[in-house]
């Protein structure tokens, strides 16, 4: 894809995905708390003692992280903006910009609720990065490549969800952590007035709305690529298959998340470091043994 059409494709995919995610969040369950809190797009905010360099940088960095993440999403055999050789690793790196954006906005706003949300978002980063990385490793081992299109092609025979159920479960839990959805709502909890969403207004509210909905969309889309065979499917055209799988996985994640009670930061960190990471390491070994026994496509 050339640069011009690549840019158009990325912007279209992101805004469309974020819009549908926004709609799906409202439809799936009770009025969603946390990142989907209603925020006024029309009324801006003036913060007297904010940091005038970090505070506006937050939404821009968050929006940029989501925009860059959409570059490697494959919606069809050649419907991907840039099929990078290390696409999946690039995806994990770029999604961290959203956490950086929230931290910048939180600290820059200089209000107790926002600064507390900055501390909690760093705690959430510490909790979700390692298990998420381990959940990706399983799919990469079987696909022999980090490029997203190669991973989807490797799943033409059998989807990886069948071969790696543990990896899929680990991905769903750390995906919920990564997109701050129920039950891991701490950075946007009501206790601190919705964290940064209480200090965000006008244009930054719009950028944050796109970024936070975009994160959930990207997490679900990458889950579909890694475990549900991306765009491959019998009758429907490839992009439609990708959209169907993405929103099915998103609905499953949101529904599963609502079953659990909201976890505090301490419980989330304990869950991540005591349960998810050992399970992730075990999953890597199990998938390695599967490959050595020539079970998977490897």
């Amino acid at each position, binding site marked *: 894809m050339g640069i011009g059409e690549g840019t158009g494709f990325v912007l279209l995919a992101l805004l469309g995905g974020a819009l549908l995610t926004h709609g799906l969040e409202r439809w799936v369950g009770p009025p969603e708390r946390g990142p989907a809190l209603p925020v006024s797009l029309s009324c801006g905010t003036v913060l007297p003692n904010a940091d005038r360099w970090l505070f506006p940088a937050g*939404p821009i960095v968050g929006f940029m992280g989501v925009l860059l993440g959409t570059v490697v999403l494959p919606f069809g055999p050649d419907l991907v903006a840039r099929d990078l050789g290390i696409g999946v690793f690039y995806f994990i790196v770029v999604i961290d910009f959203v956490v950086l954006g929230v931290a910048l906005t939180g600290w820059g706003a200089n209000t*107790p609720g*926002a*600064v*507390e949300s900055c501390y909690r978002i760093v705690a959430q980063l510490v909790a979700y990065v390692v298990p998420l990385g381990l959940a990706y*490793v399983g799919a990469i081992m*079987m696909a022999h490549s*980090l490029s997203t299109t190669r991973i989807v092609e490797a799943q033409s025979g059998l989807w990886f969800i069948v071969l790696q159920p543990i990896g899929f479960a680990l991905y769903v839990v750390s995906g919920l952590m990564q997109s701050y959805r129920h039950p891991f709502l701490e950075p946007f909890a009501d206790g601190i007035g919705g964290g940064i969403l209480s200090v965000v207004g006008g244009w930054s509210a719009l950028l944050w709305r796109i970024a936070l909905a975009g994160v959930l969309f990207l997490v679900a889309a990458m889950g579909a690529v890694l475990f549900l065979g991306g765009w491959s499917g019998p009758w429907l055209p490839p992009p439609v298959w990708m959209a169907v799988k993405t929103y099915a996985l998103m609905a499953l994640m949101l529904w599963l998340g609502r079953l659990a009670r909201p976890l505090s930061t301490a419980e989330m960190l304990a869950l991540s470091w005591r349960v998810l990471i050992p399970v992730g390491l075990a999953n890597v070994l199990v998938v390695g*043994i599967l490959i050595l026994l020539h079970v998977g496509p490897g």
Partner: protein
Amino acid sequence: MQVEGNDIEAAYSLVGLLVIIAAGLGLLAMALWRRPSRTIEAPPAWAQYRFGFLIYALIFLAFDMEMIFMYPWAVVFADLGIAAFVDMMVFIALLSAGIAYAWGMGGLEWE
């Protein structure tokens, strides 16, 4: 003339363009969004704060590197077979020993 930039740089040109577009859109939105705005009165909160996940953060710094070693290994694993698998078993054993030590020493708790 030197050969055109090889395909690694060409692949990331779209990424660079998108960085500029994101910054541009953000600044444009900030500059043009002249709407009524409410002032939020709140006490300044930049103060010393003792967060509870001290040991988690320290271990995260060291443990973050494990992913970097795992991805190249995962890519070439199927071709190298059992030797690479034993390598990674040793690497994973070392890392889980680290986590077990931190857990045993009471590190994985909220202070």
